[in-house]
């Protein structure tokens, strides 16, 4: 990819509709087709799971596309294990927005 994928939280989804983003969150619920994650700003996001990735552990980073209904279509996800500081991750998202030039 020539352009890096921006990191977002649930509130920023509306800025990136139809774009590819990364979003980190704690898995709240998971069935075979969809999952709900709690993003770093405590907002809930629905993810359309594509079935190729394992959703083990409590925390996950989803790379996917934001749909018009703000759900995320998963491309790839990475398990982040169980020990994760969501607040710090939110800080990263904030800095990414604030200092766009460094992150893009």
């Amino acid at each position: 990819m020539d352009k890096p994928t921006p990191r977002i939280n649930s509130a920023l989804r509306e800025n990136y509709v139809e774009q590819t983003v990364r979003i980190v969150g704690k898995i709240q619920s998971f069935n075979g087709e969809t999952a709900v994650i709690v993003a770093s700003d405590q907002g809930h996001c629905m993810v359309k799971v594509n079935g190729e990735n394992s959703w083990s552990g409590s925390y996950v980073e989803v790379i996917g596309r934001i749909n018009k209904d703000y759900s995320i279509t998963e491309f790839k996800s990475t398990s982040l294990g169980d020990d994760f500081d969501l607040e710090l991750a939110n800080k990263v998202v904030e800095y990414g927005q604030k200092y766009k030039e460094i992150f893009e």
Partner: protein
Amino acid sequence: MTTDMELTPNAIKTLFDTRGETSGVEHPVLQVINVKAVQSGTGTRYRVILSDGAHFMQAMLSSNTNPLAENNTLERWSVIRLMGSVCNEVNGRRILIILNVEVLGKPESGKIGNPVSIENGGSPSSSTTTTNNNEQRSQPTPMSISSSNNSGGPVAQSSGRTNFQLESSLFPITGLNPYQNRWTIKARVTSKSEVKHWHNSKGEGKLFNVHLLDKSGEIKATAFKDQVDRLYHILEEDKVYYISKARVTMARKQFSTLDSEYELVLENQTEIEVCPDEVAIPKVNYNFVRIADVESCEPNTTIDMIAVVRDDNGVQEIVTKTTGRPVKKRELVVVDDSEKQIRLTIWDKLAEEFDSSGAPVVAFRGLRVGDFGGRSLSLGSSGSAKVNPDIPETTKLKHWYASQSTDASYSSFAPQSTGSIGHQANTRISLNKVKKDGLGSSEKPDYFSTRATVVFMRSENPAYPGCPECRKKMVANENGWACEKCNKQFPEPTWRYILTASIEDATAQLYVQLFDETAAIIVGQSANEVMRLKDSDVDAFTKAMSEGLFKTYNFKVRAKSDTFNDTTRIKYNIMEATPIDYVQEAKEMVIALDNLTL
């Protein structure tokens, strides 16, 4: 009533409002409502009350007009023509100084009109304008200038109280300069030094100095030789004095911590008079700095501080390098509600007598900032320490300290080798700063924290054979190992690391030494295990020594200057090595980032 006896209307008001710059009436006609003799340092003065029929105000006869009162030419109810006067402001009151007056006569009807005091905005006196009433009302106004232990009513003014002549020509301290020498100041002694003796090539002598404070500012005054004997007992701390006829000279900044351009030299002709009226003069001017802010102070600046004494290391006697004389010092550790602690040293007599029991709140004035161990404080000779002073900050600190647990740890400015006190995240520096600042190049060791990665560990002689009991190096002989110190034999030594490694961060690289405890963390194995491998399996040994590479730690380092056969090198010893808690570090980074952008 004859026309002579008509008082000039509004004359008092004009004199009062224009402060004597008589753009108004020339030579107004006024009536004397009261005359009172006042004893002062310079003799008898006469206080009079002048009225224009509508208002009255306070006045004084100047010395040359005294005779008029003395021989009763000028007396109560006399009508006078004011030929010359000047209006002075003393302590917020306007007093008319009568320089020249012509007595016109005395009407039989006594008081003309029904004057009210110009100063109180004219609140009318009671209709029974008895002389008593008037006296009582006019008495308090000048009485308030003098001290307030005044049981109401006319009180005979004792000698040495409000000295009107001096009061009317008071200078502010900031107004003193060498070009004007007719001045009097009224000031409080905020600090008095001990009598100091000196010997130099020109002879010997003694001196003491005081700091004088008034509303406008502060100035230092010194008395030399004979004046010491004359004045040392007169000038007392916290008391207020009238001082005049001292010499105003340029300040010698190296001996003074005050900000003043000039200094006073108290000489033979200097007059010092106790003043019991302290109302207008402030007490000590404190400008407290919080411990956390001391870090941003440059060394050798002078500050004030109020803090709780947490630790007292007792009185020690050391020999100073400069004079070679023994000097007593006491090292304290103080904390304040900025949640930091700092070392504070007091000297000489104060050190001997200081009592730190009960964790007192102490207000320090004139503390010199040093950079020993990061930041330290020393009470200078012109400073003062007041235990549990009567100011609001004291109660505030006492409450805060009481709410802290007794073994709460406070971050200090440098890690102390005996017992750690909190974490020193705020002293973490980069390695190039270590090199640039030459940490460790002075005589005392410097301590710092840094985060760096181990990039190299020396494999030759990483450890020495140590005695299991005393850790000293042992010598190998046929039966095993012999310790020289303990005179014992051991079959196996306890190998202890004496590891040289190279650490790097994004800015620079440093060669460091690690001792057994810290090296074991870095290498991941004990020295014994590693040395065993060295003899048996070289590959395994090499692998063991490289396992620890490229791991990042938070290091606490001591930098010390070491002279070895003419070469002086700075040696860096690792005191502590801790693996990184990423979450904690990231949180600290967030704080730093937020601070950066504010």
